[in-house]
Structure formats: C-alpha cells, structure tokens
C-alpha cells in the first residue's frame, strides 16, 4: 500500500501535526492564532476544528508564557508542540527556553523529561516587515540541552516533525518559511533516517556545499549552475544544527577537500563558524582551501527591498565556490 503524496512543505507539517495528535493523546498544540485561524501560515489549519480547543490551544499573546506553560504541561506528562509566530518573536521566550526548558532534565538529574517542540517559521525572502525574516538558530545552538533541526523539503518536514515530537528532549524546529509553498513527495509510510543525520542531496567530487533549511534549494541550484561550468559540487543537507553531523560533513570533505557552508543567518558567530572550526580540525590535512562561509552580514535584517541582495543567492554561493576552488 503506497502512501506517497505530493504536497507543499506547509501541508506536510499540517499532516504531520494531525498524525501526532491522532497517535498520541498527550500531544497538544499551543500558540498565538493556531486555533480557528490555523496559524498565520495555516500550518495548523483545521486542527482545532477536528481535535478541539483542549488539544489545539490559542494562547494569550505572550511568548514567555507560552513556553513557560508548555514546560509545566510537559512536567504533567503532555507533549506540547508550541508555535512561535515568527522568528523575531521568539526572544520574549528566550529566558524560559535557555534557563528552564534546556536545563530542566539535567537539573532534575534525569528524573524529568522535556518533550517540548518549538516550531519557528524562520528566514527571509518573503518580503516581510522587520522581525519576520530572521534566522536565529545560532542563538539556540550554543545552548546545551536543546536540539535544533530544520527541514528543507516536504518529506523531511513531515518526518522530522514526527521525530521531533517523539523525542524526549526539547527540539527547536525551524521551518523555512519561504519554502512553505514548495511541493514535494511525502511517503507517510516510509521508515525515516535518523533525525540528526546530514544527507547528500547531490553527489560531487570537487567541493562540498553544506546548508540546511531554505538554503538547500539555493545550493542545489548553485551546484547545477556549477556543473554547467564543469565543476562537480556535492550538496549536503545538514538537516540538524544541534547536533551537527560532523561525521557526515567530514566524510564528504575528505573526498571533495573543499567546503563552503551556506546559511541565511549572519556569518559572524553563525553555524558556519562552528562547522569551519571543527571540520578544519578534523580534516586539516585534507583541506585544499579554507572552509568558506556564505551568509548574512553583521547588520540587522534589512527592509524587504534589500533582502534579495542581503540573502545569500546563487551568485554569492557560486562566488564562494569559485574562491574555494581557486586555492
């Protein structure tokens, strides 16, 4: 019996949430406007109607309260899946996430678990106003106790969310909002791979492009363009930012000997820094060029009319590929 269907990334998330609500009575969804409205991106569309206000909970407009009460519900045995409306609005909840959610399991010497998923639509490219286009994953990755993942396609969106909800640790689930409308095949009866494993989404021999979330597509496009110029570029979809799959990256880099990391978040203190530092240590004698990074600048996310130039696009990725290959 095949269960393969083509759907948008946001629909895949919706179906995944529905499945979770069906499979486990302890799963609850909480957030601003997740009820009747179905979320501003419609990811929770129809869920309150079918599962009731007790399972799909519109919350007061207070992110610290949302995460703080989700922690309490987790202590009571629930598995809250929390929605933060936009990347830029997670910060009022930052204290609860960093000092409570992340540390509770350790503080309790393992006696309590924190199966809380925090879904955050993130990244730019949708022409939005301030605070609606940011990529704050680094600000969470530095914090022990959190897991951080980001799918790049519909199938991963479905499965990684399933796995995040099943995980007994807090997972920050970054959704690439400008890919919400991209369609892909989802096989809801497949057996998914490990949540935190990188995946080679295009093989290559000259250089590795590593990315996650929204930039995977851009990297695939860049690899295709590079191929036309005779360069064989491998693309790694990292999928997870904490933990990072260093083994997977290392394996690729030992073959290609060159690595470019791409993300929307600012380069300074971004994921690329951690990857560059560790891979350089692991592959010091393999690397023919320094690990290069392509990402945002050390500046606030700019107004929409500048985002095309601010965001790492095809050209900037290819420029880095060329620079790396020039070593």
């Amino acid at each position: 019996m095949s269960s393969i269907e083509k759907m948008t990334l946001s629909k895949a998330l919706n179906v995944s949430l529905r499945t979770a609500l069906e499979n486990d009575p302890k799963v609850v969804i909480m957030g601003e406007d997740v009820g009747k409205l179905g979320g501003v991106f419609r990811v929770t569309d129809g869920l309150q109607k079918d599962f009731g206000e007790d399972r799909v909970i519109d919350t007061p407009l207070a992110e610290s309260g949302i995460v703080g009460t989700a922690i309490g519900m987790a202590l009571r045995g629930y598995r809250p899946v929390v929605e933060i409306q936009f990347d830029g609005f997670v910060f009022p909840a930052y204290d609860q996430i960093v000092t409570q959610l992340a540390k509770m399991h350790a503080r309790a010497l393992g006696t309590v678990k924190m199966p809380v998923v925090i879904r955050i639509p993130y990244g730019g490219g949708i022409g939005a106003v301030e605070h609606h286009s940011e990529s704050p994953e680094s600000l969470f990755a530095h914090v022990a106790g959190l897991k951080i993942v980001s799918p790049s396609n519909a199938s991963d969106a479905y499965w990684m969310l399933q796995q995040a909800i099943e995980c007994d640790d807090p997972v920050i689930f970054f959704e690439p909002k400008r890919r919400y409308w991209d369609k892909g095949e989802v096989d809801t009866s497949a057996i998914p791979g490990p949540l935190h494993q990188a995946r080679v989404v295009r093989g290559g021999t000259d250089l590795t492009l590593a990315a996650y979330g929204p930039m995977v597509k851009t990297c695939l496009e860049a690899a295709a363009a590079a191929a036309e110029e005779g360069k064989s570029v491998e693309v790694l979809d990292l999928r997870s930012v904490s933990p990072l799959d260093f083994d997977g990256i290392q394996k690729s880099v030992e073959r290609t000997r060159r690595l470019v990391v791409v993300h929307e978040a600012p380069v300074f203190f971004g994921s690329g820094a951690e990857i560059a530092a560790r891979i350089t240590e692991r592959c010091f004698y393999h690397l023919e060029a320094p690990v290069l990074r392509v990402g945002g600048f050390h500046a606030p996310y700019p107004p929409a009319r500048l985002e095309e130039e601010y965001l790492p696009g095809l050209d900037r990725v290819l420029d880095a590929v060329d620079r790396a290959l020039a070593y």
Partner: protein
Amino acid sequence: MTVESTAARKPRRSSKRVSAKKPPAEQTELVQLLTPEGERVEHSEYSIDLSHDELRGLYRDMVMTRCFDAEATTLQRQGELGLWASLLGQEAAQIGSARALRDDDYVFPTYREHGVAWCRGVDPTNLLGMFRGVNNGGWDPNSNNFHLYTIVIGSQTLHATGYAMGVAKDGADSAVIAYFGDGASSQGDVNEAFTFSAVYNAPVVFFCQNNQWAISEPTERQTRVPLYQRAQGFGFPGVRVDGNDVLACLAVTKAAVERARRGEGPTLVEAFTYRMAAHTTNDDPSKYRNEDEYESWKSKDPIERFRTYLSNEGIADQDYLDAVEAEAEQLGKRVRDAVRTMPDPDTMAIFENVYADGHALVDEERAQFAAYQASFAEEGN
C-alpha cells in the same frame, strides 16, 4: 490514559466569565460623551469644552486619517506596499487621544497609530516606508516627538516608561503616552511597564486600544475582566472610554495627561473600540469572526456619529464636510504619487547605521561586498 476534556470545569468557568464581564462594563463603566446616535451626553467626571473650530478639526483629522488609511490599503493591493495595518474604526481613539497632547509630550506607538502620527505632524508618506519595505522606520522620532513604529508587541511600553522617568528627572512637565493593543496586555513587558511606572511615579499614559481582536484571538483569550481594571492592581487608575467617541477619548486622555504633568503618575486608558478591517492586508478575518459583529460595530462608526453631531448642532455644514472630503482626496493623491516614486534604498544601506561609532566587521563586510558587486560591473563591461 485518555485525555479527558476540561468539561467538568468548563460550565462554571464560563458562567463565571459571563457574570464578571461585559454587561456592566460596557454600560456603566464606559466613559461616553457622544452616543452612537451622535447625541452629546454629559459625564460626571469628564467634561470637554471645545470651540467649533476645534471640533471641526477633530472631524477633519478623522476623515483625513481614514482616507489615508484606505489609500494605503489600496496601494497594498496594487503591490506598492508589502503590507498594511489598517486603523479603520479606530480613528476616534487615535485622534481623540493624540489631540490631548502638547508638542513637548512624547508618543510611543505600535504599528497601527496612523491617526496619532497624523496629529503629531508626521508626513503620512513617511509611515509607508516600512510597509513598502524601503526602511524599518522612516522618520526621526525627535522631530515630532513621535517614536518609531514598534512591531515586537508591548516592548514600546517600557521605552515610554523609561522616557517618562527621564522627563521626571529633567523636572519637565511633559507627559508620555504609550499605545498598545488588547493582545499586548498579556506581554510581560507591558506589565513590567506598569510596575516601573508606578514605582517611579512616571508621567506616562498607557493608552490601550482594545479593538477586541489580536489577529484571530478575541480579547477573552487575553483577560477575563475588562482591561482597564488591570491598572488598579498596580496602584494607579484605569478608565474605560468609548473608543469610538472622539470627544470622550480626548477628555479622558487629557485628564490622564494632566495627572501625569501634575506628578501623579501613570494612568491606564482602555479605549473600547473595534478593528473594522482585517488585522493586516495579509489577514482573512472571515476565518474567525462573523459578519454580525462587524455590522453591529459599523453602526457605532466613530466618524459617522461625529458628523451627525456636528451637523445636528450646526457646527459643520455640508460645504465644510465637502471641503474636508476634497482635501482628503488630495491627500490620497499626494500619498499615491509619493509612494509610487519612492526610491528603493541603495544596496549599501544594508551596512549603514548598524553602529553609531563604527565597527570593524561592518567596515570589512561593506568593503568585501562592494568589491563583490563591483566584480559584476566589471564582468558587465
């Protein structure tokens, strides 16, 4: 283990809510000087005595604001703006409160205070920059004592409080007003602003436009008692005013501002109004609220009722009303033209104003990016 519903608790809970809420609130607690039918009524605590010129001015402010707002909505539909947050229905709350202020007072708005901006003398086209995506705030806050629009819900209430603490320190008798919504009342920041302003007795007015919706959530998702009552628990007065009654909004805000000037500290004003439009142009209210509610509020329209009053009292004749209409159309046209010719920012603006005193990394990235861009220009040659 099955998940039982909270049904056992629910009946009591909701009966509780009903008994604690609206009926008394709307009728006895609401300060009103003008009925929805446009009839002038007196209030024991709040009075107002305006010249005909001033009254006509309020009308003009509301009409200009509504027209500008409608124009912006249209411009969004035409793709000239990325987004628009309409104030439709909230004109009286905004104009009434803003006209209670002096030039030296200071305003901290949300993202919807277009009517307040108008009263402060901010050029309406300036408001459109951030919605068009050419900047994140297009004006100098100090030229009109009107702070930048703030999107992170509630955070400006603390800025207002701090500013007011500074005013007090300076020994000035200016007042500060912080606008926020019913949804914002749930944010920790807003409640911290209540605490700080009370403890320091800061000259600030918290002006909450309860338009009954925070995107798709009705006010009951934020509070089970009327919001103006929140203030009491922090030790300062709260008052609920008919937010569609420009005169009452002016009178109540003026009283609050004067309290602040006299050194009596903060006041919370809850302007009970209604968001007639969608939350923003991205929103589809048909998903979560019904037409009836909308219709019932349409009959309380702030501009209609004020026009009725002005006409009935002979304060404004048809010529005046027509003239205002014409002026508003002019404004619409001016805004339209200005937006369409609004230049895109220079790419290098990305690196501007990140720091006031410079930062080596910004300089480095700016130079690298300029070189990168120049490389295309060369290729192009």
